[in-house]
């Protein structure tokens, strides 16, 4: 009984020593959503399929000049100013065509897939011997750069892989805004 009494007294003392929690509180609450940007460029193949991995180009010895049409599409939410495309020679399929014989061209107009012609003069951006090429013109969100790879008519085979690399520096820098 004595212990119980001591326990009660101790609890009362402790409870009264605690800060009061029953006071009035004024409260202001708001919720805000913050979203972050993304940057990236993907290859879109001739069938308009977005390829989110290394893009493989295999030229089989057909006896004719071969073409592979593809685009680079800005799939991020920011304009990409400069980005790189790395070129890897596919060793397994690099049978007998020199990588340097492959030419990668850009068409700033539209490719005619029937005549294999560009509506404006095409620009050579790399050969298969290159290890990379840069695209320095600003690519707006959702926009595409139209490219193709072609081989000469020499009846030989080769394989290439393309990897599109977009670093943080390709998009706008940090800004301070007040509103």
């Amino acid at each position: 009984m004595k212990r119980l009494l001591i326990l009660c007294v101790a609890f009362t003392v402790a409870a009264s020593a605690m800060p009061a929690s029953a006071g009035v509180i004024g409260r202001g609450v708001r919720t805000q959503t913050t979203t972050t940007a993304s940057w990236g460029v993907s290859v879109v193949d001739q069938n308009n399929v977005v390829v989110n991995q290394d893009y493989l180009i295999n030229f089989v010895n057909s006896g004719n000049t071969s073409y592979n049409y593809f685009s680079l599409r800005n799939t991020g939410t920011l304009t990409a100013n400069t980005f790189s495309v790395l070129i890897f020679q596919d060793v397994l399929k690099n049978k007998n065509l020199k990588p340097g014989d492959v030419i990668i061209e850009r068409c700033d107009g539209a490719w005619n897939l029937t005549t294999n012609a560009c509506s404006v003069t095409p620009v050579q951006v790399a050969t298969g011997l290159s290890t990379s090429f840069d695209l320095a013109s600003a690519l707006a969100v959702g926009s595409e750069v139209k490219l193709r790879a072609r081989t000469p008519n020499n009846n030989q085979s080769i394989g290439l892989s393309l990897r599109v690399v977009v670093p943080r520096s390709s998009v706008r820098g940090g800004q301070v805004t007040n509103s």
Partner: protein
Amino acid sequence: MIEAIKKKRTWRPLAGAVIVISVAAIAGQSVLASLNATAFNTSAQNINAGTLKLDLANSGNGFGTSIANVVPGDVVNRYVTLTNSGSLNGIGLSLKTAQTGTQSLISDGVSGSTTKALKLTVTSCTVAWNTSTGVCSGTATEELASTVIGSLTNATALTNSNLNSSAVRYLQMKIELPDQNETTINGTLPTNTVQGGAVNVTYTFDLAQRTATTTNS
């Protein structure tokens, strides 16, 4: 003779009881008949409980507009105003946040290289901020040092934690995403990326009543 004595003894208790009751009745009547005096206030005393109201209002966009397309290195300043519109002075002004969404934007990783999350700094100005330029033409005070947004789940006292009745606190809420490098390959975002994320942050400002006092007057 003996019978007469017996009769006398029989009457004695009865007579005694009658006498006691009579005395009690007389005494009681005399009490009931005493004078009473009553004093009261002719007009009722008015006792009002104080009020404590904390109004949170947007100044400019404030919390009313989402923050979109943030990149590392961005600093987004939004402005809100706190007003104690109650009748009581307030103490213990504090802020806490609750967050849902992309984890990499909410809390940092273990190592220093994973300090990626959104950070919040709160600064007050003695006069209203210029919400277009971010200039405080009065005196600015850092109310909350730069803190990762996910570390504010417990109420954190602001530097100036008193807010008297009718007082206004002009706050700049500075949201920043630390500068950091990420490279996107083939359109695929890196793991644990800060890109393409979304966070809903609920800001809760609490103001407690002034300390209760005992007054004599």
